[in-house]
């Protein structure tokens, strides 16, 4: 039951993009086609889960016991950056089709603040355990995927819309994101 609540909270109530503002760069950047947004979501799911698993263990068994908690930010970003590189190399060797699908998105993920954000937020979970932290990461990446794919679908339709000159491009995208966020606000109080 507790895990169901984490899932609903992360996907709908505290959606990582639309109500916590993490991962806005890929959200605005790679959402012009549905197919690319699906690829990006897959890559985020993959990296976020592994990154949270590794950083959680590192924090629990290395940083905290040796009293180096203040090095959290610097270690996490290094771990994530090298992890992304490693995942890229391994995928290329082990599963070329998956690499074809996710490859271009992987380097972009290092600077996706959602990955570092979730890794840090996972440390603050109530009665946290490794399993819970990893589940939290998966739930959040599903939330990211939902927001990104819905937004990309709307943007594909917007291509055809007749807009005032000043609204074209960034402003209309932000407005659409605002309305989407308003819709997700309706879920608050659900959990």
């Amino acid at each position, binding site marked *: 039951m507790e895990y169901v609540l984490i899932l609903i909270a992360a996907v709908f109530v505290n959606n990582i993009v639309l109500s916590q503002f993490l991962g806005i760069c890929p959200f605005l950047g790679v959402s012009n086609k549905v197919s690319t947004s699906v690829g990006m979501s897959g890559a985020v799911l993959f990296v976020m889960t592994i990154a949270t698993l590794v950083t959680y263990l590192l924090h629990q068994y290395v940083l905290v016991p040796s009293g180096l908690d203040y090095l959290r930010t610097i270690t996490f970003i290094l771990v994530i950056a090298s992890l992304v590189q490693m995942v890229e190399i391994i995928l290329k060797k082990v599963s070329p089709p998956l690499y074809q699908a996710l490859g271009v998105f992987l380097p972009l993920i290092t600077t996706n603040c959602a990955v*570092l954000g979730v890794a840090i937020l996972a440390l603050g979970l109530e009665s946290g355990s490794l399993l819970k932290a990893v589940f939290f990461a998966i739930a959040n990446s599903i939330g990211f995927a939902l927001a990104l794919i819905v937004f990309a679908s709307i943007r594909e339709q917007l291509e055809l819309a007749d807009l005032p000159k000043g609204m074209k491009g960034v402003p209309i995208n932000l407005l659409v994101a605002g309305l989407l*966020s308003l819709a997700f606000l309706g879920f608050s109080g659900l959990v």
Partner: protein
Amino acid sequence: MPDKISQKENFLKGIIKDNPVFVMLLGMCPALGVTSSAFNGLGMGVATLFVLLMSNIVVSLIKTQIPSKVRIPAFIIVIAAFVTIVEMVLEAYIPFLYEQLGIFIPLIVVNCLVLGRSEAFASKNNLYSSIIDALGMGIGFTIALTALGATREILGSGSIFDWRFVSEDANTFILFILPPGAFIALAYLTILFNKTTKTS
């Protein structure tokens, strides 16, 4: 060697022509996430300005020592070190702001603006130009965040920098201090910014 007269332009480009938030869309996460009041926007802007300035200085000093293959990880370490300093200083001296900005302080590390300036500017230019560039970009970012924060605070809570100008029980547009308000306010500020900068 870039000539002296371009330094003024170098400084101004960060504020107007290449404003990080309104034009280049860099650092959008903190821009939307912490700007529920003018003071938070200003605090985040100044914190980012500090990190940007220090990392630009260090990167431009060590640029010849770093092999180009590992330059990105090297830049990230430099940036992360300064972010950790900011985090500790804020926690010790301005705990109120530290609480308000929360997760977005460690996330300055992955702010594309900071890494972007290191990579695109400081690693190719001399110390003096890099300092000017960081100041221009940082001030442009701070102005944008403060403007967004002020707009949301005025509409959402009827106050500015915590000074209330409507009565306690007045109805305000609470929407603007909630998450959707961030997107909507930024959309209209962007239109306004483009309109004013392009005609002048």
